[in-house]
């Protein structure tokens, strides 16, 4: 037994002092650095909405999810949003042979392309990179939706990971569905109080923490802080433009993924 222990100790010693392993460590470090560089380039291209440069860093051939849905989701992001700022903090890099998993915590501020509302989203995501001809390319995304959150079909494709923010609800498992009703108790003809009722008639609770509402009856969007459980309602009283034909809209930017996005508007009458 003692002999075996000595042998093991020797082996471990040899193992630790061999130049070969130093090479491995150096190589591994440079691999990690390579992945970090590719990620920061992806991030920069995303912020600058340069889809050509963005997709050059993604391997269509090895992409694990549906590449076409992903490219559609990126196009949709660029069409719908203007990124204000994205802050990222790399949490860790783990390896699976040559492949690298990069874990990132992030905070993204963006506004809708009509310049109406600014929103902040936080998350934790995992990106898988593979080496192709000496260059690292992105082949899978998991966790919260740093990229492509404007296309629900893509969100279905993204697996959840431990530690992600709980704002991701699997699409097929029942979604919230917000509706809005409003009336002007003092009648029409000017800026007056409007009673607004927002109800979640969907299958699951909203988890975004905030629900925005707005519309032509208001001058800017407002925020209700809190979530709504299935069947739960909230009555809000807000001064606005009480005129026949003006609209009130809940979740005007489709920030909350819903079962039915077409019932978010109500016309004062």
């Amino acid at each position: 037994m003692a002999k075996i222990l000595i042998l093991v100790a020797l082996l471990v010693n040899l193992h630790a002092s061999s130049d070969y392993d130093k090479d491995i460590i150096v190589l591994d470090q440079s691999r990690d650095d390579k992945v970090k560089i590719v990620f920061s380039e992806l991030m920069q291209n995303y912020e600058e909405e340069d889809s050509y440069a963005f997709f050059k860093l993604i391997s269509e051939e090895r992409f694990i999810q549906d590449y076409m849905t992903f490219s559609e989701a990126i196009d949709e992001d660029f069409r719908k949003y203007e990124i204000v700022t994205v802050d990222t903090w790399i949490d860790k890099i783990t390896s699976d042979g040559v492949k690298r998993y990069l874990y990132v915590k992030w905070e993204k501020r963006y506004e809708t392309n009509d310049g109406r509302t600014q929103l902040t989203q936080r998350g934790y995501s995992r990106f898988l990179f593979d080496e192709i001809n000496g260059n690292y390319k992105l082949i899978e995304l998991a966790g919260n939706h740093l990229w492509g959150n404007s296309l629900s079909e893509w969100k279905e494709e993204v697996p959840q990971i431990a530690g992600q923010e709980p704002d991701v609800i699997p699409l097929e498992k029942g979604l919230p569905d917000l509706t809005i009703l409003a009336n002007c108790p003092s009648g029409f003809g000017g800026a007056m109080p409007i009673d607004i009722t927002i109800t979640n008639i969907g299958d699951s609770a909203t988890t975004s923490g905030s629900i925005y509402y707005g519309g032509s009856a208001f001058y800017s969007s407002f925020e209700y802080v809190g979530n709504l459980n299935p069947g739960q309602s909230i009555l809000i009283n807000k001064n606005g433009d009480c005129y026949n034909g003006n609209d009130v809209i809940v979740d005007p930017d489709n920030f909350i993924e819903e079962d039915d996005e077409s019932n978010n508007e109500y016309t004062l009458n």
Partner: protein
Amino acid sequence: MKYLNLTLIGLVSIVSASNFKQEDKWKVEGRLSGYLQNVDVENGTSVKEGFTQSHELDIKFHGPLYHGNAGIEARVRESNDERVQKNNEHLLFLKGYFTDKIWNHEIGDVAASLNPYVYGGSVKGLKVEYKNDKKEDKWDYKFITGIRKAQWRETYQTTENEGLDTYVAAFESKYTYERAKEITLSLASLKDDLESGYNKTAAGKKGTTLGIETKWRFNKYITLKGRAAVSHSTDDLRENKDSKIENAIRLRLLTRPVLSSIKSNFMYQRISADFISAAGSANADNEKFENSTSWKINKQLSTKLNLKSSRDNLDGGLGDTQYIYYESLNFLYKPESIKRANVDFKFTNRDVQGRGTNTNQFTAGVNGNYRTTTGFRYGLGYDYSNLTDSNTASSSQTINNIRFILGYKQKLEAESSYRITVTADVQNVSQDENNQDRYGLKLDAGYQVNKKLSMDLTYISRNTYRDESNDSVNSTYQFRTTYRLDDKGKKTVRLLLEKQDNDIENDSASSYNEHIAKLSYVYNF
């Protein structure tokens, strides 16, 4: 040595393949967040007026236990803002758990989402999950039971407007053949206790639902997703209404006839008129057919076509049937010669017919964005919408809208940046005897220092001129600042100051000014 290394790498990979990892020690983690807000209204009244505050604490105490992990989680809130918290319930969430490589046990506030037709939601009770360690050819199980209560205090007293006690149990077994090939069976049973609750006349329901759900990727070209359920339920227990056997089905076929250039997805749904899912949910009485086809013609041009149709009145009980037809067509052009530019064309058409409604809405829009390498951004958009209501002519309206954006963003050293954006829009709404023009302007400027401090200044003006009633002029001035106290974004303070001026022509009683100050914080520990 090389082989020993490979073996070690292999071993590490096998160990890290399992998601379960025992924690090192017991620790407390949490998050404290909230806000203080003051709203002051001149020349008017608003329920929002006054000082409100809300503070929420999430706390989790967790660590290793035997060969697994255990913990307790709670969330409490204190607020005087009625919009956030209508009553004085402080304890929002309480849960204890024990998890190991295979089992997960939870007690307290537990939630599960199974097949939506069968079960979805949270109860005060117990949840047990069995997670098979294998990656494929495996069965996983889930069981949940308990009482549905809106608040914890309803468990020891009857509160005003408290609903009936609902007893629920649900079970799911899921077979995974391999990645993206799954079949799930689920069963749920529910019954309301008519003697409980505040309102002794509430109808109450009971029922059992059996469901099947599948996701099967046959190959790169075809994937089938579907769910179906049979329910034996009643939604009026007090009147002794009979339970009926009804069914619901939803099928989605995802096809990729030409990989990476064409995809076409089909959806069919039919939920019978009297389908009641006692523990799950479904909007009964409709039949839908939808198709969405995308074609990436080349790197520069892609197009998407959506076709949807739906009808209700499946059993004729509504007398007349309502049909809805929707079509939309999109083109996205990204010229290769001008990088960072895109032009988007969109057309939609929607018809609603039947049961007293006969409307058509047509919209068309073109939007272009261009961003230069020097930091400038240009955006131009035009949208047209025409609503024709054949039954009520006064509801018909036409809207024309033009929008323009000019922005500039510049990165400075050390992750600092600043930006300025000007957005202008003009809208004309033409209605029977009630035309109006709206002019909107928004100026937005922001400055960010490192990842720590950011400041924004916004001015929004919105003026509306109406033919038949008073004009209005609205201005909003807003200042926002965010400060992160650490490098990882775990501790953040935000301040918002806003002033809104609302003037209505010839109506000083309705004109008012609003001042808002809001300080919010997030502290993770």
